[in-house]
Structures are given as structure tokens and as C-alpha cells.
């Protein structure tokens, strides 16, 4: 292949979007041609910089403002015949309660204080969401040598991935997810028909997370820290087997 033709196809090549023969042909050209390989490397590094350093984060409080908008919308929708609507009454009561609190700080404290801690909530939500939609896996493979490199270009850390199929926990694949306003790795394992999501991210030495195991809404979860990484496994699997899984992962 000519360099010019190769370079014009590097973008889809990078995404694995070309027919297999073409992927192969470009792959072998790249092994032989340093110039084209360097070109591809530029694309990789620009992509990585975009993901890691150029991404914009929502300003603080956006979530609360969105929630407030939705609340208002709900309220307006039920204005048709408010006295007939039980929901309206409940909301009116809630609004009165909110109005009685002093300012937004009080409101935020009231809405977040009594619930599940935000991080645990994020983890649970990410697990449930992964089951509801068809996005359980972005890379589906039982081979740790396929799953690991998939994460390499997408995260600034390398989540440990292990195949524990012989111990009855089959590796299924991986996915990116959001927990605690950051990108985390989700590695998926199966025990019989039970999906286990293992969320992993580097631990913050200034905020160490204690180990914990807990149940909520029919899901069990265990969290531990090892080798500078936080692991948080969530599943509808029983706590005993989830504990065995934790032991296997942290032993390996």
C-alpha cells in the first residue's frame, strides 16, 4: 500500500472500523513504515490529550439546578386540577418544607443528607443502569489481554483485569463509567446468571475509603482498597459468594 492511502485510512483504522482485510493490510504496512506509524501515534496522543486534559466538567451545582427545573416542571404539569392530585399535595408539602429551610445550602443538605452517600449511590446507579440498557460491555471478551489494552487508551490508570473462569467467575468484558464525577473502569464478571460489576479507580491518599460491605435494594456490594486502587464490586449475587469473589480478586 502507498503511504498516502494508508494515512487517509488511519482514522477508521484506529477505531477498528475498516473491513478485516484492510485492517490487516494497514497493520502490516505500519509495522514496516515508521512514518505512517508515527502519524498514527500522533492521532493516538491527540485523542488521549483530548480525553484527559481538554474535557470540560459541568460547573458545581448544575445537577441541583437541573433537579430544581424538573421539580418545577412536575409541579406545573399537575396544576390542571391540583386538588384532585395526591401527588400535587405531596409536592406542595415538600415545597413548603423546602421553603422553610434557609437558602440553597439548606436545600442541598436536606436532599442529600438523609440518603445513601453519593458515592455508594453512584455505584448502585451505574450497576442498575448497566443492566437496564444494552451497554453492559463496551469491550466484550473473556480474554484479559483484550480487555486490559482496551482500557489503556481511555483511562489514566490501568485497572487490573483477571480471568477467574476456573474459579467460577467468568470475565465478560469492560466498560467506562462515571462514579463520583470521574471516569472509572467497570470490569464485568459473571457468576452463573449473576452480573458482577467491579468499579475501579485510583484511591486518593488524602481521602482513604474504608472497606465496607452493604446491601441495598436487593443488590450487594463490597468495597476494598489494594495496591493504590479502590475496588467496588456490585451484584445481585449473595453476599457469601461475593465475598469469595473479593478474596479471589484481591489475592491474585
Amino acid at each position: 500500500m502507498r503511504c498516502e492511502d494508508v494515512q487517509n485510512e488511519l482514522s477508521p483504522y484506529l477505531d477498528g472500523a475498516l473491513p478485516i482485510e484492510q485492517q490487516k493490510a494497514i497493520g502490516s504496512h505500519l509495522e514496516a513504515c515508521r512514518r505512517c506509524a508515527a502519524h498514527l501515534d500522533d492521532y493516538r496522543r491527540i485523542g488521549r490529550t483530548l480525553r484527559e486534559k481538554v474535557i470540560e466538567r459541568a460547573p458545581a451545582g448544575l445537577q441541583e439546578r437541573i433537579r430544581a427545573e424538573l421539580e418545577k416542571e412536575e409541579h406545573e404539569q399537575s396544576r390542571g386540577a391540583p386538588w384532585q392530585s395526591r401527588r400535587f399535595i405531596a409536592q406542595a408539602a415538600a415545597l413548603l418544607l423546602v421553603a422553610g429551610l434557609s437558602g440553597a445550602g439548606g436545600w442541598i443538605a436536606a436532599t442529600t443528607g438523609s440518603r445513601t452517600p453519593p458515592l455508594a449511590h453512584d455505584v448502585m446507579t451505574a450497576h442498575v443502569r448497566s443492566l437496564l440498557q444494552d451497554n453492559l460491555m463496551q469491550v466484550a471478551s473473556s480474554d484479559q489481554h483484550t480487555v486490559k489494552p482496551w482500557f489503556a487508551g481511555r483511562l489514566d490508570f490501568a485497572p487490573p483485569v483477571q480471568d477467574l473462569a476456573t474459579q467460577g467467575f467468568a470475565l465478560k468484558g469492560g466498560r467506562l463509567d462515571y462514579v463520583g464525577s470521574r471516569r472509572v473502569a467497570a470490569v464485568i464478571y459473571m457468576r452463573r446468571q449473576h452480573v458482577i460489576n467491579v468499579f475501579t479507580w485510583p484511591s486518593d491518599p488524602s481521602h482513604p475509603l474504608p472497606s465496607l460491605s452493604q446491601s441495598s435494594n436487593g443488590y450487594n456490594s463490597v468495597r476494598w482498597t489494594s495496591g493504590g486502587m479502590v475496588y467496588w464490586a456490585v451484584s445481585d449475587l449473595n453476599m457469601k459468594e461475593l465475598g469469595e469473589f473479593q478474596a479471589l480478586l484481591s489475592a491474585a
Partner: protein
Amino acid sequence: MAQQSRFEELALPYRDAAYNLAYWIVRNSDDAEDVVQDAYLRAYRAFNGFRGEEMRPWLFAIVRHCAYRLLKVRKRTYDLVPLDETNSPDVASGDPSAEDTLVEAVNAQHVRAALAELPLAYRDVVVLREMESLSYSEIAEITGVPIGTVMSRLSRGRALLRKAMKGRETESGSDAL
């Protein structure tokens, strides 16, 4: 209420990503925030029609639509698809510096500036692919163009970014990070 909390549970985790997409279309933080709030409200109103398909492309299509609408309302000049899109994307050739590799560490400020200057039709495709890791078919769904067009816009967008980076590096010597 159940409806609202289900919506929040599915849609709110994407607020950062939605904001990032909006930001890179409108290129300013106040407008981006307005766009995201507007989009979430619209998404919520349409949520009855949501049948459990994937939340992210569905939500992003709404965010993108709101962002483009804002640009239109503001009558800002925005660069839609340039005429040469259908020509062969032979951006690799012709540029004398194109043979050099970028210096080891890519300067984030330069990438940021290069992305901001990328024509919109390429910019949102690049954001969706490079930053949000969406598939070609998801991007096609969000932007309402065929997969082949997604592929060629992404090709061109990446090539333009690389070219701009090279220009910037030559200008400033190699004071990259």
C-alpha cells in the same frame, strides 16, 4: 415522582458529558450550562416516549439539538460542512511539516485551541468519538447523518487537528509540556 426519579437516575450521571458536548458546540460555559438545563427539561418531557433504548445517544441528540438551536438563535456565524468535504481527504500530503512527528508530550493548550477552531461539523463528531468514546453508529444516530459521513468527518477532523497542532508547534518552538 417515580417517573422523575427514574429519569434522574438514568440521565443525571451523564451531566458532565452532556455539558462537555454542549461546551464544545457553543464554546462558552454560560451558554453550555443553559443548553444542558434546557436539554434535560426537554428530555424529561419526552421521557414518556423513551422505550429503554440507550440513554446516552438519546440524551446527546437532544443536547446537540439544543446547542445548535442556541447558536442559530444567537445568529452566530458558524461553520457548517465546508464544501470540500466530499473531496478526497488527502490532508496528509502537501504540508511540508506533515512528515515530522509531534513532540513527545502533546501540549494540552494547543489541542484545546485547535479543537475550538475546528469547523463545527467536524468538532462535534471528534468530541463524541475521542472524548465520549461513542461508536460510529451512535454518532450517526446523534448527528442524523449516515455512518460513512461520520467516518469521513472524523477522518478529516483528526487530520485537521493534527495539522493545526503541527502549525502551533512550529510557531512556538517545541515548548510543549
